C-alpha cells in the first residue's frame, strides 16, 4: 500500500537539534524534529502529560524534553521515558534528497 506522502520542507529548514511545527486546520499540530545526526522524526505536538508543545523542547540524542515539566519523550515512538508513562502519537516521516515528507492520512 502506498502512503500518501506529502512534502513538508527541506531538511535545512529545521535546525539540527531542533524542531519546526506544522500547523493544521483539521487536526493537531505536528512537530518535526531533526537530531544532531540529521535523523528526522515527527510527533503530534502534544506531551502526553499536560499537552505541552514538544516542538519547543530541547532535542538531545533521540529524545525531546517537554518545555513545560521536563518529561522526556522518545522521538521514534512518542513514548514517555521511564518512569513516566504515556505516548504522543508519531507520524511516519521520510527524508529523500534533502526533502522531508510526512504520511498524513
Amino acid at each position: 500500500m502506498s502512503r500518501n506522502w506529502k512534502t513538508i520542507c527541506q531538511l535545512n529548514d529545521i535546525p539540527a537539534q531542533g524542531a519546526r511545527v506544522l500547523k493544521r486546520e483539521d487536526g493537531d499540530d505536528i512537530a518535526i524534529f531533526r537530531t544532531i545526526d540529521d535523523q528526522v522524526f515527527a510527533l503530534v505536538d502534544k506531551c502526553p502529560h499536560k499537552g505541552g508543545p514538544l516542538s519547543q523542547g530541547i532535542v538531545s540524542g533521540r529524545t525531546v524534553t517537554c518545555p513545560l515539566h521536563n518529561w522526556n519523550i522518545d522521538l521514534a515512538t512518542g513514548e514517555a521515558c521511564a518512569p513516566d508513562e504515556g505516548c504522543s502519537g508519531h507520524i511516519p516521516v521520510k527524508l529523500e534528497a534533502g526533502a522531508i515528507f510526512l504520511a498524513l492520512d
Partner: protein
Amino acid sequence: MKKLKLVMVGNGMAGVRTLEELLKLTPELYDITVFGAEPHANYNRILLSPVLTGEQTLPEIMLNDVDWYAEHGITLHLGKEVVEIDRGRRIVRAADGTEAEYDRLLLATGSNPFILPVPGKELDGVVTFRDIHDVNTMIDAAANHRHAVVIGGGLLGLEAANGLSVRGMKVTVVHLGEWLLDRQLDRTAAAMLQDTLQERGLSFLLQKQTAELVAGSNGRVASVRFKDGDEVPADLVVMAVGIRPNFNLAEQSGIYCDRGIVVNDFMQTFDPRVYAVGECVSHRGVSYGLVAPLFDMAKVVANHLANFGIARYVPAATSTKLKVTGVDLFSAGNFMGGDGHEEITLSDPVGGIYKKLIVKDDKLVGACLYGDTADGGWYFRLIREGHAIHEMREQLMLGEGAIGDTGHQGQNRAMGMSDDAEVCGCNGVCKGSIVKAIQEKGLFTVDEVKKHTKAASSCGSCTGLVEQILINCVGGAADVKPKSEKAICGCTDLNHGQVRQAIRERHLTSLADTFTALDWRSVDGCSSCRPAINYYLISSWPGEAKDDPQSRFINERVHANIQKDGTYSVIPRMWGGVTNPSELRRIADVADKYDIPMVKVTGGQRIDLLGVKKEDLPKVWADLNMPSGHAYGKSLRTVKTCVGSEFCRFGTQDSTQMGIDLEKDLFGMWSPAKVKLAVSGCPRNCAESGIKDVGIIGVDSGWELYIGGNGGIKTEVAEFLCKVKTHDEVMVYSGAFLQLYREEAFYLERTVHYLHRVGMEYIKQRVLEDEVGRNELYARLKFALSFEQDPWAERTKGGVARHEFAPLSIETVTA
C-alpha cells in the same frame, strides 16, 4: 568483538550496585555471571529491621528480582557458594561443582557477623541478624517463645531488640560498652535513647560480658550467663556484636588480605584481574559497613571495569540513622571530638532534645543529634563541604531552616508528618506516596525520588523534606551529596565545578569540544547538561564561545516566556520601573491589535502581556519598540526602585536614577540563575532591597550594598556587603560581585546559595579587599556585556532566528 567474561562472587547490595553502574556505562562489554550463596536475589539488607518489626515484607525490600538479571543477560547462580578460585586458569568453582571462567573477577563477598567464642554458641535458638534466614528464625521464635536476649547495643542490636519487642517478646539488650551505640552517640545522647527504649519495655544490661549460653532440657538455649555470675533467661539469643569482612575465599586463593581484601584506590586487589567491592575490602586499612561508602566504591569499580580508568575511591564522612520508629537520631562525621576539637551542645533532657556539634579548625567535623534531626542533612553537607563556619557559628546550632517556607504549611520535620500530609505543594505529592516509592522502587537519592514521584521536581522548596523522608526510610544509604559533589547529569561523572574548571583550563569553547574532551557518555548531552555547559562556555569565553540556541531552554531561545497553553508572555523593559505615556500607549495598542487576553502589572515594576501567539512575537516586539525585559531568562531581570530624593520627602538619594543606571550598565547579562536588583532611596526600603540578589539602600552619607537576598521559595534576607560613597563605586562593587557569581556559581545556583557555599568572607576578600581584583572583575563583566545586544531588536530588525517564529505548512501533494 567477543565479549569479556565478568564473574561476580557475592550477590549483595554493593556488588549488584556495581553491576548497575557498569551496565549504565557499558551495557555490552561483558558477559556477566553472578554467584550468590543466599537463595534470594538482591534485597535491601538495611531494611531487614522493618521486616522484623512487620512494617515491611520481603517482596517490598527486593532491589533486583531474578527478572532483572534475566533482562540484562546476567547468568545468576543462586544458593551456590563459591569455594575456589583458580587464578592460573581464571576459573571460579562453587561447592556444587558449578564453574565459570573469567577475564575479570569481582569479589563482593560482604561480611560475616561476628560470633562470640563462648560455650553454647551453636545451640538451637542462637542467631545473628544478617540475612533473611535470620529474620525468619527470629519471627518464628517470637511467635513461640517469650524471652529474648540481644547481645550488642549497636545499631543492629537495637533494631533487632526493637523488632522482637514489637513482636511481643520480652527483650534484654546486653552491651559490653559503657553506653549504647558507643560508635554513633556520645554518652548523653545514649542515656536519653536508653530512657526512651526502656519506656517502651526494653531492658538493658550494660558493661556485661557474656560467659556462656546455657542449654535447657530440650537442647535449646535457655539462658545467658555472664562473667560476674549473673544469669538471664533466654529462649532466643541474637548476636549483634559486629561484622567481620568475609575474605576467606580471597585469602585461600592467594590474594593479599589483611583483615579484609586489600585494594588500592581503584578497588583493585593485588591480582590486577581481580577487583573487590563492599564490606569485604580493606581500603587504606579501613573496612566499611555503612551503605553510602559502599555505593561510592561501586561507582569506582564500575568505572574501571568499563575501561574508563578515571575514578578513585576517596573516603568521605558518613552519617548514620537508627531505624527505630519514633526515635529520632542522627550522627555524622567525628561526633566524639577530642584534642583540638571544640564542642557546641544544646541539651534539653525534659524536651527530649540533645544536639552536639564538633568543630575543628573553624570547620564542622561532626554532629550528633537526638530528638530533632531536621537539620541533619544540612550539618552533613557542611561536614562534607568543609566550609569555614565562624561567620555562622552563633546560628549554627539553630539549624539552617533549610526547608522552604511555602507550600507545606510551614512543616519542617518529616518525622511528624502524617502519610497524607502534602510534602510537595507544586505537584501535590503527599508523604505516603514518597515513602511508598522509596520502598517499592528501592530509591536512594533525592533525584530518583523526584523522577518517580515528581516531589521536589518543580520549585524545589520541599527538597529538604524529601531528603529527610529518604533518610528516615533508608538511613545511611541515602545519597544526600551536596550539588558540589554530584555529577551534572547521567551523561558524565563530573560535577559542575570540575566541568567549569576544565572549560577554563583547557580552553574549551564549544559544546562538541567539551563533550569530546570530557568523555561525555551521550553524543549531544541532555536537557540538563546542555544549558549548563552552554552557560559555562559563554561566561568563560565571551566573544569566543558561540552561544548555542539549541542548548537553551525555549524561553531563552525565543526570548519570551512559555505559558501552559503554549502561548508566550512579553515583558518589555522599563528602566528602573519608569515609563511614560508614549510607551503606555504603544503597549495598549499592541494589546488591542494582537488580541492579547491579559495585561498585568508584574512584581518587578513593569507590564506583562500574556497569551501572545508565538508567530506574533516579532511583530509585537516591533510595534512595542521597547527593549527586551529578559523576564524569561537566567539573566538580569529587573532593577526595582523607589521614588527617591527627586520626589519623596524622606528620600536621601536619587534611587530611581541609580536603578536606571545599574539596569543599563548590566543590560543583557546572562547569569547562572535569574538576578534581581533593587535600589531604595532611604532606610525605609520601599523597593524591598533586603530580598534581592543585589540590594542597595541609599543613606544620607552614601549607599549600602546587600547581597544574596531572595524573595521566592524560601525568603532569604540579603547580607550586608559594604557601604560606599559614590555612584561609580555602587556600579563597580555591584558589578564585581555579580561577575564573581557569574564566573564561579553553578548553573541554576542563586546568589544566596552561592554565597552560602563559598562564604561571605571569601566574597569580601575578592570584592572589597582586593582592589585590583575588583576592578578586573568589573572589567571582565563589561567586556562580556560588550557582545550583548537587544535580542528583540536583533529578531525584528536583523531577522535572527526567523525559523523559530514561522510555522510550516503543507506545500505539495505527491502520490
